[in-house]
C-alpha cells in the first residue's frame, strides 16, 4: 500500500462514499418497512350505522361483528366521539357551530383486525350486515406505502450495485498497482513452488483491509448523521416513526462491515488472476 498511497486513499474514500450511500439506502428502507408495518397494524375497519337503530340493534350488530373471523376488538364510537375526533383532526373546536348546530355524523363501530390480512375479509363481511350503511378501511393507503417502499428498494438496490461496482473497480486498481510493484516477487514465488493461495493471501488481506477501513469511516459518518436526522425528523414530522439508533446500530454494523470485507475481497481477487498464470 505504501507505494501507491494516493490510489489507496482514493480506494478507501470510494468505499467510504459507496458504503455510506448503501447504508443510507438500507436505513431508509428499514425505516419505510417499519412505518409500513405500523400503518398496516393500525388499519381499522369503520362500520357506520343507520340512524334509526335501537340499542337492541346496536348490540345485535356488535355481536355479529365479533363473530367475524379475524376480528380482534370492536369499539363503539358514538357520533359525539366521532365529532370530537373530527374536531381534533381539523383543529377546530367549533365545528358543531360551523355545521349549523347539528351533528351529522352517524354512530359507528371501530373494528381492529388480528392481522393485516384479515382487514379486507372483515370489511367485506361487515358491509353485508343489516343496519350498517357504510364501511371503510384504509384501502389503498397500505398498498401505496408498500408500492413506495418497493420502488425505493429497487432504486436503492440499483444505486447500491453501481456503487459497489465502482468500489470494486477502485480497489482492483489499487491492488493492481501493488501487484505491479511486486510482480517480480510474485513470479519468483511461483517459480519457487508457491501455491496460488499463498501468493493471493497478502493481497486478499490488503483488499479486505481497504474494505474495512472504508466501511468503518462510512459507518461512523452514517451513525453520526442518523442520530441527528432521527431526532430532527421525530421532532418535525411526528407521525413518522424513526427507528432508534440502538435498534439499527447492530445490523447496520454487520451490513456495512460485511459489505466492506466482501468488496475488498472481490477487488483483490480480480487483478491477481492474470498474474497467477505463471
Amino acid at each position, binding site marked *: 500500500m505504501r507505494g501507491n498511497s494516493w490510489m489507496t486513499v482514493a480506494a478507501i474514500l470510494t468505499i467510504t462514499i459507496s458504503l455510506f450511500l448503501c447504508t443510507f439506502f438500507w436505513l431508509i428502507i428499514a425505516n419505510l418497512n417499519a412505518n409500513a408495518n405500523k400503518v398496516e397494524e393500525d388499519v381499522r375497519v369503520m362500520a357506520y350505522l343507520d340512524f334509526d337503530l335501537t340499542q337492541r340493534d346496536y348490540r345485535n350488530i356488535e355481536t355479529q361483528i365479533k363473530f367475524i373471523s379475524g376480528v380482534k376488538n370492536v369499539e363503539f364510537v358514538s357520533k359525539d366521539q366521532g365529532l370530537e375526533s373530527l374536531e381534533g383532526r381539523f383543529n377546530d373546536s367549533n365545528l358543531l357551530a360551523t355545521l349549523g348546530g347539528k351533528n351529522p355524523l352517524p354512530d359507528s363501530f371501530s373494528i381492529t383486525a388480528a392481522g393485516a390480512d384479515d382487514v379486507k375479509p372483515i370489511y367485506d363481511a361487515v358491509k353485508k350486515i343489516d343496519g350498517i350503511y357504510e364501511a371503510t378501511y384504509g384501502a389503498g393507503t397500505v398498498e401505496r406505502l408498500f408500492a413506495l417502499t418497493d420502488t425505493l428498494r429497487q432504486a436503492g438496490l440499483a444505486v447500491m450495485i453501481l456503487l459497489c461496482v465502482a468500489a470494486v473497480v477502485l480497489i482492483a486498481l489499487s491492488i493492481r498497482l501493488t501487484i505491479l510493484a511486486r510482480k*517480480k*516477487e510474485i*513470479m*519468483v*514465488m*511461483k*517459480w*519457487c*513452488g*508457491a*501455491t*496460488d493461495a*499463498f501468493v493471493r493471501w497478502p493481497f486478499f488481506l490488503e483488499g479486505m483491509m481497504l474494505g474495512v477501513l472504508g466501511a468503518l469511516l462510512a459507518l461512523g459518518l452514517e451513525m453520526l448523521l442518523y442520530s441527528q436526522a432521527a431526532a430532527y425528523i421525530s421532532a418535525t414530522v411526528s407521525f413518522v416513526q424513526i427507528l432508534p439508533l440502538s435498534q439499527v446500530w447492530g445490523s447496520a454494523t454487520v451490513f456495512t462491515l460485511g459489505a466492506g470485507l466482501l468488496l475488498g475481497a472481490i477487488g483483490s481477487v480480480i487483478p491477481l488472476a492474470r498474474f497467477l498464470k*505463471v
Partner: protein
Amino acid sequence: MLIQTVNLGKVYKNGIAALADINLTIDFGEFIFLTGASGAGKSTLIRLLFREELPTAGQVLIGGRSVVRLTTPEIVRLRRNSGVVFQDFRLMESCSVFDNVAFALKAVERPWNEIKMRVPAMLERVGLAGREHENVMHLSGGEQQRVAVARAIINNPLILFADEPTGDLDPKTSDELIHLFADINAEGTTLVMATHDKDIVERMQRRVITLERGRMIGDTVGGWQL
C-alpha cells in the same frame, strides 16, 4: 529418465521461431551445458523446461508427464522440485541477503524455526557466511549470483536450471560458481546450464547440447562444439 523433449518447438506471438524439432533426454544426475550463440534458443529451451513458457509444437515430458497437461497442484510440485538461476539474478532489491534466500522457503510454507536454521547454513555453503543482514544491492555481481544460487537450491531441487549464470561475472567468480554447481551436481542434483562461455565448457568436459538458430546441431560429451 527425468526430462524428455519430443519434436519440441516454440514460435513466439510476434512470429519469431525460437526453437524447432528439439529431441533430447535428460537423466537423473546429469550435468548438461546448453551452448550456442546469442539467439540460438538456449534461454527459450530453459524456459520451456521449467514451464515458464509452453511449447507451440511437440512436448516436454517430465517424469513421463506432459508439462502442458499438468494440473495446478502438479505445477506446484514440479516447481518445488526445480531450481532456477537467472542471468539477471532476479533478487528482491530492497531485501537483505537472508530475506532473499528465506523467500524460497517461505514460498513453500516452511516454518520460521526451520528457515532460521537453514538460511545461514546455505549462505555458509555458497561462501556468504555472516553476510545475512546486508542488503543484496550492496553485494558484488558474483555475490548476488551466489545469493540467487542459494535461493534456487535451498529447497533441495531434483533439477537446477541456470540461464547464463556466469554471463556478467569475471572469470574468477565464474570459476567459483561453476565449482559450486559441480558440487551441487555431485550431490545428485541434475543440472542444466545455458552458457556461451567456451572456457568453462572446455574445462568441465560434460555433456554439451549445441543449438544453432533454434535447432539442435550437437549432443556430445566433451568440449565446445562450434
